[in-house]
């Protein structure tokens, strides 16, 4: 899952980004409203975390611009401006959730998970597809026979994305967009390597290759 973090305080942004990466997200960071608006419009993110007090362009303007350009990605507003008047305005402008600063990372993480679950149409907190159970906290997967397998960061992100969107053909570039951060080397061969490694760990039958189109994660085997 790839997130956009919009936060102008460099130290705080670095801290949150580190926590998010540790939790298995790919994170792009924008520190002003203009970059944020561009990235949110042009890149495919699974969720965006938006501060309101931004240099360059106010956060609310950025949000409205995204929404009017048809960007439907879930947005969580994370701001010190958390009066109810501001909350109502923020949520009315198209945000999906609102969290006031200061906050504990667990709360942010829980709300992000809820947002992502909602956007992928999943009702349960656990991600279970085709007998595989993904432990999002410990970044492991439990196979149908009960054995637990460790995953690397990239493997975890790739598997989480695949399991969140089962039975859909996902192109290599689409997967790259959602698994890697913005400035990462986007050689599609690297993705193939990760898919092969995942197949080795969870079994070949789960990920189907569609020649010339991409990959498909099967909900039942």
């Amino acid at each position, binding site marked *: 899952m790839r997130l956009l973090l919009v936060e102008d305080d460099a130290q705080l942004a670095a801290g949150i980004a580190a926590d998010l990466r540790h939790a298995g997200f790919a994170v792009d960071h924008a520190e002003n409203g203009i970059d944020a608006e561009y990235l949110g419009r042009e890149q495919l993110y699974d969720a965006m975390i938006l501060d309101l007090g931004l240099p360059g362009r106010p956060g609310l303007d950025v949000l409205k611009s995204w929404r009017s350009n048809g960007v439907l990605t879930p947005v969580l507003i994370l701001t010190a401006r958390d009066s109810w008047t501001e909350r109502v305005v923020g949520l009315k402008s198209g945000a999906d959730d609102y969290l006031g600063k*200061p906050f504990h990372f667990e709360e942010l993480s829980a709300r992000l998970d809820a947002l992502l679950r909602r956007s992928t149409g999943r009702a349960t907190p656990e991600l279970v597809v085709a007998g595989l159970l993904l432990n999002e906290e410990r970044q492991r997967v439990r196979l149908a026979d009960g054995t637990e397998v460790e995953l690397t960061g990239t493997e975890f992100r790739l598997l989480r994305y695949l399991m969140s969107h089962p039975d859909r053909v996902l192109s290599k570039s689409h997967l790259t967009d959602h698994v890697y951060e913005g400035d990462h080397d986007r050689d599609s061969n690297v993705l193939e390597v990760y898919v092969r490694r995942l197949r080795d760990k969870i079994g070949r039958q789960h990920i189907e290759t569609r020649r010339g189109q991409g990959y498909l994660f099967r909900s039942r085997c």
Partner: protein
Amino acid sequence: MISLERHFVSGLAVTLLAVFAVLFWGSVTAVRSLSEAYVLARLEHDAEALLAAVWVNPRGEGRLGEGRVSPIYRQPLSGHYFAVNFSDGGQIRSRSLWDETLEIPAVAVGEVRTFTGRGPGEQHLQLRTAGYRKGGRKFSLTVAEDMAPMAADIHRFQLLALGLLAFALLAIVLIQRYVLRRGFRALDEVRDQVRLVSAGQMQQINEPGPLEIRPLTAEVNRLLKQVQQRLQRSRLAVGNLAHALKAPLSLMTRDLDSAQMPGTERERLAGQLNRIRVLIERELKRARFAGEGQGRYFVPREQIPDLLEALRQMYRGRGLDISCGDLPEAVLPFDGEDMLELLGNLLDNACKWARQRVELRISRDEAVLITVSDDGPGVAESDWDLLLRRGGRLDEQEAGHGLGLGIVRDLVSDYGGTIEFARSSSLGGLQVSLMLPSPHRTG
């Protein structure tokens, strides 16, 4: 207390009284001297006619040609008299004198004297005596006229003038008082508008009123604008400060969460951080409260649906049924932001604990009544006090819980209202009831 009206009207009355007194005295004096001059002119005229009628017979006796004397002198006690006194003792008197005599001073030939005196029947007479020589004889000719009819006329004139002046005085004072009161009514309008401003239904005074109070209304408007700007500025400054403080606080919270340290030390630091957070939230939010009559007013029908929609959005994952009863149509004289803060915190708290349903009711009577109920586990009666206490312990499990209610308590006390807790009879969970007194009843 100084009354401008009393000052003005009494000043006006005194001035008018002085002016009218002079006017009255002047007119009465003029009329009297005019009528005296008129009488004297007539007496002179009569004297000349009589002089022409006096003749001396060959025996040297003075005689009067009766036929040439005006009949008024023949009618007894008619008020018109004459007497001709010869220097050697002869006398001719008008028949009107009957058997009375006139007291006449001696005058030399060519001398004229006018004077007043008593006549028959205690009449006040105006007399004119002049000395003549005719046909070799010297005599004085005296003509007299009773002044009583003239005096009566002058008296009537005096009464009439007095009456007219008194009426004019009364009329002018009353008219001025009416005009003044009409003028002061413009002040009443301004006062009503100031009252509306303080009730929060107007931002500025619209009616500039008459020229004289326009500077005053302009000053009041300037002051209002200043207060509003100051409020806005301080709100902005407080907002900026809160914003600036919260970023480092967020970072410290984050660093502490991921730091490797013994549990007791971490707890102590976390406690301190939480205290700072509570202080920022409570005190800075408090500073942002507008209090009654300031800022923008609260329009339930516009603002509540947005607030409920925002809450539904935030709690979408839990599928809560957040509803409200009929909302009052009126504009309530409370600050809109304050009310959103109040209701937002109450409803947010209810949503955190509710299983499925949260209900808001707002009704308006003499006061505004707000109840928020949920179908959550509720709070034991013994813990109700704790809900409002600063840093209450009930909130430790759920972030922001007790804090929100602390803000609610501060706002309610700012508005002079009351908070009551109960078990909701319809939903079974906690029911929080607020009563906020209306500063002024409005339509």
